């Protein structure tokens, strides 16, 4: 996972947030540009559709703007924003399930269970070179797979992962730990067996 943002970047972001809180739309636009990729990808993972993810991310940005007075100055902006976008995406997913009701459960829930490889985060890993990771991720329980996806494919921090998925930080940590342990068991050379070198 990459290094976090520099102090300069955080200071610049904090200045943009202050201006946006004062009603500066252009400053908020800059914040949108800075974070739209992470917001969109979190929504993609949660909703599985780029079109739905775009709508959810856009709505999330609008809601975040309306709630800027509740953002505490000095805190990092991205985890807070991803919490808002994650909430929006999860609400949309729940609405979709309620709307489709039994039909959705009959078609999608069963098919997703039967074919975990169709999970949206796994569809990102195309090609033979990714097949091993894809298979290992597909074997994880959904909660662990989402945490590992956020941490390693989205490069989110633990706090951002917990906020985006709407779970307590401790839960994110334990799922991360368990998920990695399972991945390691599948992807590392078998414990106790010496690695064969040519």
């Amino acid at each position, binding site marked *: 996972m990459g290094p976090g943002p520099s102090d300069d970047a955080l200071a610049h972001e904090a200045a943009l947030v202050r201006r*946006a*809180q*004062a*009603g500066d*739309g252009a400053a*908020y*636009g800059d914040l*949108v*540009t800075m974070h*739209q*990729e992470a917001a*969109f*990808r979190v929504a*993609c993972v949660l909703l599985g559709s*780029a079109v739905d*993810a*775009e709508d959810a*991310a*856009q709505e999330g*940005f*609008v809601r975040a*703007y*309306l*709630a*800027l*007075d*509740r953002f505490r100055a000095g805190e990092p902006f991205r985890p807070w924003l991803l919490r808002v976008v994650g909430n929006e995406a999860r609400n949309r997913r729940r609405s979709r399930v*309620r*709307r489709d*009701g*039994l*039909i959705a*459960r*009959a*078609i999608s*829930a*069963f*098919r997703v*269970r*039967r074919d975990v490889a169709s999970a949206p985060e796994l*569809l*990102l*890993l195309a090609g033979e*070179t*990714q097949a*091993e*990771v*894809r298979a290992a991720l597909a074997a994880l329980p959904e909660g662990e797979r989402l945490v*590992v996806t956020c941490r*390693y*494919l989205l*490069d989110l921090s633990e706090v951002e992962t917990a906020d985006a998925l709407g779970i307590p930080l401790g839960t994110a940590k334990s799922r*991360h*730990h368990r998920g*990695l*342990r399972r*991945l*390691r068991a599948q*992807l*590392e050379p078998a414990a106790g067996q010496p690695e064969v070198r040519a």
Partner: protein
Amino acid sequence: MTDPGPRTEALLAAARAGAAWPATPDLRADVIARIAAGGVEPAPLGHSGTARRARSWRVARSLVLALLAVVAITGVAGALGFQLPGLEIRFVEQLPPAGSGLSLGTAVPLAEARAVEVPRVLLPAALPQPSTAYILGTGGDRVVTLAWRAAAGEPALAGSDLSLTLMAVPGKVEAPVLQKILGPGTAIEPVTVHGDRAWWISGTPHDMLIARPDGSIRVLTAVLAGNTLVFARDGTLYRIESALGRDATIAVADSMR
């Protein structure tokens, strides 16, 4: 921090680098346009606590008024013996069994229905637990039916509160026999369930003929008027009457264990 292990870490890094994310749309213009069009602004700093308290007071006041209204209505209803003009209020311990009044048999616990050996009813993994289980008849004429109540907003089978019934009968089904009793206005389409032959019957209400294990023919009378998926497995004929449409119903059948 958990150590992922060198190979796992390398594979995950490669996966991150090679992940085929959809192109990120440029949201800036749309977000700014929506904010501008809505004429909305974040609440002024330093007033958020006051604003929230004011909003909380307004919400609390609305709740109190709503509660008073309910108390008043309940009081009137109580005075009238829960009889209001055009409205009767009854309190029941629980809703009647889903599908009651449809002559599906005697409502039984699900475990009892599943314990029946002939016919053996299977549960669809794609659906939640059935709302009600029924047993009708005895011996070779026994029919086990599972019924799912339609939730609010979900399609229901005509004349019922159900979205789907799964009926298990001893026997098998063959197209020539099956088609004999289907009248005009009823379409029969061959489909597959678990790779085996099945039939999707749609259109007007229909009874059907089925072959019993002893070779005799039996009329299976339609209880409802919904479209039906029919297939047989291991000596049991399954008849799924469904308001969910063909593909969803086949998915339900595919998930039966």
